[in-house]
C-alpha cells in the first residue's frame, strides 16, 4: 500500500528565515498523525507545504504515490479558524456546499443535485442540520469549526488535514471534535496540527514533533528527552487529570536535566 504522504528532504524558507529544514516524514494510510511543536516551529508550514499553499525550496512531496496536481481531490483541508473572516455574509449550508466546488474557473457554475445531497449528508453526520440557514457570524466557535470539517468532508477525501481544529473552542466542543475525528479515522487518514500537546497525544495514533527539523516521529508517548530537544529547554510534562498520561516513567533522577 502506498503511503498517504511521503515527504522527502523538504526545506521551506520564508525570505531569509528557515521554516522547515530537511524534513523526512512518511504517513501511512489509516494513520492518525498529530503534529506538535513550539510556535513558529513549522507545524502549519508543513501542512501547507503538503497542500501546495507554500512554495517549497527543496525536496519532494508525494500524495498517495502521485503529485499534488494528480491527487488533489483526495485531500480535505480544514484551515485555521483565525484565517477566515467570520463576518462574511454566507450561511452554514453554503459554506459546506462550497466543499463541492470544482477545480478551475467555472462559467456560470451551478451545484448539482448530488452536491446538495452530499452536503445534507455531511450536515447530518456532523450534527449541524438544525443550523443549516444560520449565518457563519452567528455560529459558536465549536459549530464553526465543525462546519469547516464538514466542508472538507463533502468532497469525500481519503486524507484529512486539519490546522489547529480545537483552538478557540470550549471543552465540550473539543470533545465532540475529537470523537468525530476518531470515528472518521476508521475510514480515512488524518493529519492534525496542534499546539495542544497533552490533549492530542491521548487521541492520535502517532506523533510528529517539529522545531524547524523533525525531532521525533513515532508512537504517541513522549519522553523528556524529545520534549527537551523540541522546545530547547526542559518543560514540565504533568498530565493534569487527563485520561492518558503522556509521559513514560522518568528515566533520570529528580530535577535532573540530561
Amino acid at each position, binding site marked *: 500500500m502506498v503511503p498517504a504522504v511521503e515527504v522527502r528532504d523538504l526545506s521551506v524558507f*520564508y*525570505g531569509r528565515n528557515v521554516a522547515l529544514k530537511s524534513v523526512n516524514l512518511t504517513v501511512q494510510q489509516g494513520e492518525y498523525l498529530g503534529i506538535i511543536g513550539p510556535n513558529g516551529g513549522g507545524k502549519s508550514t508543513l501542512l501547507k507545504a503538503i*497542500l*501546495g*499553499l507554500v512554495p517549497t525550496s527543496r525536496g519532494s512531496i508525494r500524495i498517495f504515490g502521485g503529485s499534488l496536481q494528480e491527487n*488533489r*481531490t483526495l*485531500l480535505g*483541508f480544514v*484551515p485555521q479558524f483565525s*484565517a*477566515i*473572516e467570520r*463576518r*462574511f*455574509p*454566507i*450561511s452554514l449550508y453554503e*459554506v459546506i456546499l*462550497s*466543499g463541492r*466546488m*470544482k*477545480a*478551475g*474557473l*467555472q*462559467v*456560470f*457554475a*451551478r451545484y448539482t443535485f448530488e452536491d446538495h445531497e452530499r452536503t445534507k449528508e455531511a450536515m447530518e453526520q456532523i450534527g449541524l442540520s438544525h443550523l443549516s440557514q444560520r*449565518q457563519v457570524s452567528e455560529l459558536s466557535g465549536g459549530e464553526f469549526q465543525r462546519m469547516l470539517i464538514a*466542508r472538507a468532508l463533502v*468532497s469525500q477525501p481519503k486524507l484529512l488535514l486539519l490546522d489547529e481544529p480545537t483552538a478557540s473552542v470550549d471543552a465540550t466542543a473539543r470533545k465532540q471534535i475529537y470523537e468525530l475525528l476518531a470515528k472518521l479515522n476508521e475510514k480515512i487518514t488524518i493529519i492534525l496540527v496542534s499546539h495542544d500537546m497533552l490533549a492530542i497525544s491521548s487521541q492520535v495514533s502517532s506523533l510528529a514533533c517539529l522545531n524547524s527539523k523533525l525531532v521525533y516521529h513515532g508512537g504517541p508517548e513522549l519522553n523528556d528527552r524529545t520534549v527537551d530537544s523540541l522546545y530547547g529547554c526542559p518543560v514540565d510534562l504533568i498530565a493534569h487529570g487527563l485520561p492518558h498520561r503522556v509521559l513514560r516513567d522518568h528515566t533520570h533522577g529528580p530535577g535532573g536535566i540530561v
Partner: protein
Amino acid sequence: MIQAIFEYQFMQNAVIAGILASIVCGIIGVMIVEKKLVMMSGGIAHTAYGGVGLGYLFNFPPILGAFFFAVAAAFGIGFIKRKGGTRSDVIISMFWSLGMALGILFIALRPGYPPDLSSYLFGNILSVTQADLWLMVFLALFVIAIVAILYQDWKNYLFDEEFAYVMGKPTGWLEYMLLLLVALTVVVLIRVVGIILVISLLAAPAAIAEMISRTFEKRILMAVLFGLLTTLGGLTLSYYFNIASGASIVMLSAVIYLLFTIREQVHQHRLKSEMLMQDNEQKE
C-alpha cells in the same frame, strides 16, 4: 432640476454617469471591503494621476492615460505583493506617491499654461462628455460581466482563498483579475468623484450595506442602492448649490455612513442592556 435633465445633454450625461458609477461601485466595493483591499484601490487610483499628466504632455485624452496607469498599477502591486518580501502597505504607498509625482512632473514638462486638473482630482460629474460616457459604459459592462460569469468562484475566493486554492481554483489569477476590475472601476469613477475621492465612493456604500444586509447578494444590491442615493443626491446638491460634484457626493456618503454607524451603536447598546435586564429579572 428634473426639467434640466430633460433639456440639457450634460445633465443626462451626469445622471447616466452617476448610475454607472453606483453599479460598479456597489459590486466592486463589496468585494474589496470584504478582501480588505480598500487602501490598495486608493493606491491604484492615485497612480492613475501619472497617466492624466502623460495625456496632457503628449496630447491624448488624459482618461486613457489614467486607464493604462491604473491597470499597470494594479498588476504591479499585485505582482510585488505575490512575490512576497515587502509589506503590501509599503508597496501601495510607493505606487501612490510615485504616480502622483509622475503626474506633477509630466504636467511641469508640458509647454504653455498648466491645464485645470481639478476635474480629474476632485471630479466633475457635470462635465462628463459623450466620449467619457461610452468609455464608462464599456468598462462597467466588462466589470459586471466578469463578476456575473464567475460569480460562484468569486464568492468562494472571497470567503476562503486558501481553501479555494486547495480545491484547485486559480486564486492567483482571480487576485489579478480583481485588481484589474478595481483599476477599471477607478477609471469609471474618476470623472464622477475624482482620483482623490475615489476610495470614499468605493468603501462607504459597501460599508453601509454590510451593516444592514445578511447575504452577499443583498449586500451588493444595497451597496448599489446607497451608491445611487449618494451620487444622485450629491449631483442634486452640486446642481443647486454650485459646488464640486465630487465633494458633495463624498460628503453625502460620509454623512450617511456616520448615521448608520450611530444607528448600529445604539442598536448594539440596546441589545446589551436588554440582555442585562433579562439577567437581572432571572436573578430576582
